[in-house]
């Protein structure tokens, strides 16, 4: 039984991989571009899911990480003249250092202060980014002139949308895989235990503050990597990314897709970006209202999000079957 399920999982993954790999060939350019974007936003939302869905801390300041990551990349590429891969590395390093430092400060606090605290930090960055225009370009941002990236012996143009798609897909898939593995590991499971019952986890002997810090840092690095991909896709970045509006998006997408599922953020980002795209063309004057209503309806009726509710339903079905089996046996 379990082997079959595992086999089923591998099959499912294979199908998914095939779909994503083949996508550029059967999608129109516009939708391919959207999918590329969704992969990046999904990664960003994944960062949120790590700290919130898996660790139970509501970080409403995710925009700080994506902003730092994007500027890490942009400044390295623009001023240090490095290539794309080094730029991404810069984004990772910058986010690592930043999220660790902020994490040290912030993980001392419990949930409600944590929310506002993280908002404030992202706002501090926003004001600074707007103010230090010489560095960041302020709201005009930085327009990058990097034209290509290397992969082994080959060189691809950054204007080649298909190449970019595979690049983003590769980076996101790799990061996602690592995150999945992490949460399967003992460390990852300890972090989840903190969410479920912090007191008990501490009693068992874990240093919960340390665990939270690790999770916070990981969340920041993942979001920062997404931030690094932003200028890869758009050839530009600007201070607007620091505004708390984007933090809200990460929250939104994760909650809609299913917090804690790790797959959910991608699904949520995909659905919401698509919906907003369609609705905003269709009902320009009213679509913010519709988005707001949708949010409220989803969080009240399906708070576990799409995947979360699905998981719950499946477990419920499995539970019923088990009970049925037991009943039959009895």
């Amino acid at each position, binding site marked *: 039984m379990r082997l079959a399920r595992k086999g089923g999982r591998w099959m499912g993954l294979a199908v998914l991989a095939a779909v994503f790999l083949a996508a550029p060939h059967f999608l129109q350019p*516009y939708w391919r571009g959207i999918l590329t974007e969704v992969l990046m936003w999904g990664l960003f939302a994944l960062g949120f899911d790590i700290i919130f869905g898996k660790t139970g801390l509501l970080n409403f300041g995710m925009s700080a990480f994506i902003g730092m990551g994007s500027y890490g990349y942009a400044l390295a590429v623009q001023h240090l003249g490095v290539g794309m891969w080094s730029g991404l590395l810069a984004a990772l390093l910058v986010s690592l250092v930043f999220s660790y430092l902020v994490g040290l400060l912030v993980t001392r606090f419990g949930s409600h202060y944590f929310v506002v605290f993280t908002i404030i930090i992202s706002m501090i960055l926003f004001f600074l980014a*707007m103010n230090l225009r010489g560095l960041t370009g*302020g709201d*005009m941002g930085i327009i990058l002139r990097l034209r290509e990236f290397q992969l082994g012996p080959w060189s691809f143009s950054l204007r080649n949308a298909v190449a970019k798609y595979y690049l983003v897909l590769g980076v996101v898939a790799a990061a996602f895989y690592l995150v999945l593995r992490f949460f399967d590991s003992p460390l990852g499971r300890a972090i989840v235990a903190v969410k479920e019952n912090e007191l008990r986890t501490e009693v068992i002997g874990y240093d919960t503050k340390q665990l939270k810090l690790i999770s916070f840092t990981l969340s920041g690095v993942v979001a920062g990597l997404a931030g690094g991909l932003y200028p890869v896709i758009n050839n530009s970045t600007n201070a607007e990314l620091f505004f708390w509006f984007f933090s809200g998006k990460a929250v939104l997408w994760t909650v809609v897709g299913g917090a804690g599922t790790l797959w959910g953020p991608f699904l949520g980002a995909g659905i919401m970006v698509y919906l907003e795209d369609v609705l905003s*063309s269709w009902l320009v*004057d009213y679509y913010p209202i519709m988005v707001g209503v949708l949010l409220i309806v989803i969080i009240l009726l399906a708070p576990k999000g799409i995947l979360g509710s699905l998981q719950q339903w499946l477990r419920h079905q499995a539970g019923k079957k088990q009970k049925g089996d037991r009943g039959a046996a009895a």
Partner: protein
Amino acid sequence: MKTNQGKKGITRREFVKTTAIGAATISLVGVPALIGRAAQPPIKIGILMDRTGALYSFGTWGERAAIAACKAINASGGIAGRKVVWTSEDSATNVQTGLRKLRKLIQKDGCEFIVGPCNSGISVAAAPLAEQMNTVLFAWGTAQSITGKKANKYMFRGINNTRHAMMAIAKVAAKHMGKRYYCLGADYEWGRSAVAEFRRIFDPLGGQFVGEEYSPVKTDDFVPYLNKIPTDKVDVLVAGYFTGDLLKLARQAYQKGMLKHMQIVAGAMPTGLSIADLGKAAQSIWFTGYFVRRMANVPQPLKPYNRAFRKAIGMDDEGRDIKTGKVGSASYCWTPWEHVFWIKEAVEKSGWRSRDDNPKFIAALEGMQVKAGPGFITGDKFMRAQDHQVFHDQYVVKIENGNFALKGIVKGKDLIYPPDVDLTKVKA
């Protein structure tokens, strides 16, 4: 890269044959609206405006103006005989959304030209993308960098920029006001550049700089900053703020009794500003306008064109929406209208048929001079080749007796400055 429409192309012979038959049919049947039935595909224009978000009122009027222009052009025969069709999208005052919708307009809807939003940040980020997708973008934002540091071969601007605006008002200020000045601005690109551009012109004309300060973007209370201004030592307060903040600042300054002698030079045009709201502070503010709001202030020869424009977009002589009475951006929203006419002019002059002809289109536009008319309702203009920047007259207005009074017109030719970039050296 895929394009939807232009690839089909039509040989010259087919074109002539079809037109001849078409003309014959029209004259036989006497039906005027056969343009859409011609063998030539319509020209698709993408309208990208901030229909939601902070720049909502600019975006709404801008869209109206662009659509009205398309309709007007269709009514008089289209562009090179081809009908104009348009798709409109909302950039939501947000760069990411703007970029996404830009891609949608070009990749999904097959738009061949983009009439862009007044948000400079979006235009600046969109230009490289538009270039990549071989589409010409018309930018409505006034940030200097659009035709400066961030200029792009595929981006054109049909309105003066912040530099022109501040040059004009600095010249007028030098004539009418004292020379000691203090600067207060919003701490973002536009606020800072408005102040910088003012200083560039005012200083050589005798300006005496007293001090400057930049407030964080989301400020409500300006009193702490106003407190620092030595009012008795300042004649002019240069305010790098947009409508809403300008209102607050002016009112708060007035209440502090600072406006008895000191005059405010506003970096922003009075778009959407309701004069009544300013109260007594109004008589101390000078505005620089890319055109005028009131019909009364429109120069005589331009009046008929302006009248037709206002009728087309549903705006009254005082710049208000005919239906709702809300004040619109009369001195500003003419730009998307004219952008559509720039497209027409350049297509017809260059013989543009499809995207492949973009280099010809761009070459035709560079250096193009246009005359006042139903299309270019705000007067003669020329599009400078090196930076794709248009030059036109700038208006300085002041509020007197409860309404806008024209205080000075600075001619386009007096606003010329050396270009920051030379796009003619760049290949399209």
